[in-house]
């Protein structure tokens, strides 16, 4: 089936070359980082995780969201999603790959990454995150590829793949729960130390992932002969709508606990993010855009007319993707580190090389996604004719 990725029109190759160019830039800068160290980033003694770990966290959510198309089809026999499970699974493959790369580029000693396997440490959440992410990657490659191949041959998928599919369903939320545990189990970082962290991760994941799938489905319909289907897009839209509403609610629950209890160590982080402390407030406008954007998206997407119109739906999905990205990709990590354990403020902002390395990793993910989607869509087109 892979041969399908090797033929394509000008647009396809244009996209591939553009992504390769971005990867090239990111890779060269990564070599520089490898040589001189992480000092080329904006991270510091106080904000010791930055853009890389934030992207990792956001993308785990995108990856987990594949379950939102797989579950209705396999557990509820919702036939319409049979057409697009492959889009969810291949998106998960690309997203988890990016997650792995973001961890790798964040390591001070990447050559020693296998120490995690050589010295397995059961009490470290990072060990478990490594396990769940890698297994999830494998599950989605195997399931996606096998089912697509069966579809091409007009045969039912082999029997052995079914148990794997059932395993992959609870496995999807597990990757994001374990990722939330990286943060929510740490004492002394009031912003992260909350049981709502994992639920918030899941709600924002199940809003942002399906929102991205809606956009990808619309793009596929526009540029190929395969139509993921109006009903499919509408069902995804409902998932996006309710998950973004739940996400706003979860956020407000946390805000209530933090500000009604008035415990300074929990309040300071929110104050920094949304109002700034002592003139330090780099993230203030971002956080408000994120919060207001989520509320607006929630309200508008509930209105059936707006959701049914695919243009306004697409706008809503873009808003959901951008606002959840700000929430996790900018606010979550920095907000946890500021103020620092000494109640002092050190701000963080990614440097240009750091941003370009990040972009390079995103480009690797989108290259994989383009190739995998090219294969999937070509097979779907082939079946139709």
């Amino acid at each position, binding site marked *: 089936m892979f041969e399908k990725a090797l033929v394509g029109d000008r647009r396809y190759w244009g996209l591939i070359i553009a992504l390769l160019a971005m990867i090239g830039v990111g890779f060269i800068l990564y070599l520089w980082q490898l040589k*001189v*160290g*992480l*000092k080329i*980033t904006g*991270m*510091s*003694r*106080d904000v*010791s*995780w930055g853009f890389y770990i934030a992207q990792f966290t956001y993308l785990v959510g995108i990856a987990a969201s594949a379950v939102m198309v797989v579950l209705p089809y396999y557990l509820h026999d919702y036939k319409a999603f049979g057409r697009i499970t492959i889009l969810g699974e291949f998106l998960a493959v690309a997203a988890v790959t990016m997650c792995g790369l973001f*961890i790798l580029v*964040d*390591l*001070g*000693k*990447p050559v*020693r*990454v296998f*120490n*995690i396997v*050589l*010295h397995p*440490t059961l*009490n*470290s*959440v*990072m*060990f478990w995150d*490594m396990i769940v992410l890698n297994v999830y990657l494998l599950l989605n490659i195997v399931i996606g590829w096998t089912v697509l191949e069966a579809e091409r041959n007009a045969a039912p998928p082999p029997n052995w793949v079914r148990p794997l599919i059932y395993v992959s369903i609870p496995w999807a939320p597990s990757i994001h729960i374990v990722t939330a545990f*990286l*943060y929510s*189990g*740490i*004492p*002394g*970082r009031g912003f992260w130390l909350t049981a709502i962290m994992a639920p918030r991760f899941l709600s924002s994941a199940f809003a942002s992932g399906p929102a991205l799938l809606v956009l990808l489905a619309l793009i596929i319909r526009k540029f190929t002969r395969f139509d993921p289907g109006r009903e499919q897009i509408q069902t995804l839209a409902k998932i996006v709508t309710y998950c973004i509403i739940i996400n706003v609610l979860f956020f407000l629950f946390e805000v209530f606990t933090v500000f009604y209890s008035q415990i*300074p*160590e929990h309040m300071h982080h929110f104050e920094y993010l949304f109002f700034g402390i002592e003139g330090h407030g780099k993230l203030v406008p971002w956080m408000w855009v994120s919060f207001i954007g989520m509320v607006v998206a929630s309200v508008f997407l509930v209105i059936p007319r707006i959701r049914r119109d695919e243009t306004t739906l697409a706008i809503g999905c873009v808003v959901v993707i951008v606002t959840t990205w700000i929430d996790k990709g900018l606010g979550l990590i920095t907000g*946890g*580190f500021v103020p*620092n*354990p*000494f*109640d*002092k403020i*050190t701000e963080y902002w990614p440097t240009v090389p750091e941003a370009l390395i990040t972009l390079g990793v995103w480009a690797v993910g989108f290259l994989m996604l383009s190739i995998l989607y090219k294969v999937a869509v070509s097979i779907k087109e082939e079946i139709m004719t």
Partner: protein
Amino acid sequence: MTDINRREFLKIAGASTVIGLLGGWKAVELLAPGELEAKYLPKPEALTAKRWAMVVDVKRMDEAIAEKCIEVCHYIHNVPDIGDPKREIKWIWLERFEHAFPGQLQEHMAERLNGKPFIVLCNHCDNPPCVRVCPTKATWKRDDGIIMMDQHRCIGCRFCMAACPFGSRSFNWGDPRPFIKKRYPEYPTREKGVVEKCNFCAERLAKGLLPGCVEVSDGALVFGDLTASDSEVRKALRRHFAIKRKPYLGTNPQVYYIV
């Protein structure tokens, strides 16, 4: 050169397999944990304890003494002087009361504590979150309570830095070696990409010496075995009321402050 036939070849091959297996088994026995395993025994001159702890006598500690402690520590551990507060590396340093003990500042404190610098370092917690989160066991707790770092195993993920509620850990954002003013040959330097922190001078204790900072502190820093009732730390804690940093987090720091 004699030709061997199939039968002889099989004989030789069979015999060597058996010998090989026996040898292999012997090697397994030899390497398996048990009696034969080399045991680490401290040298007779080493200082040992069941639980090392430090008491900071804030009344006796002034800025001049503190500077001496910091200087000697950073010298004998080849701690670089990066000069950039965002990327600096420090094992022991000064913080004002409200930063060392955030949330505990009261409007009407004893005047002598006003703006008084507190010396801070790794607390060598009894229940250390940094050890809990490390994915490679590069940081671990010794039987005597010292939290150690293996800079040869550390992958530089910095999970321990996120987990430490005391900001005790530093990361080598770049190569530290050019920033070491005077190299101290008896202690290794580090590479870029690994985490480091105070080790309660484990290398000095092994030689029977007290931690460097304690030695130059004029009695403002007391070091000893918390489980021995006649130790200096126990005596100090019996005589004075002492506080610990962020005790409510349950990490149980082993650096005490007599205020």
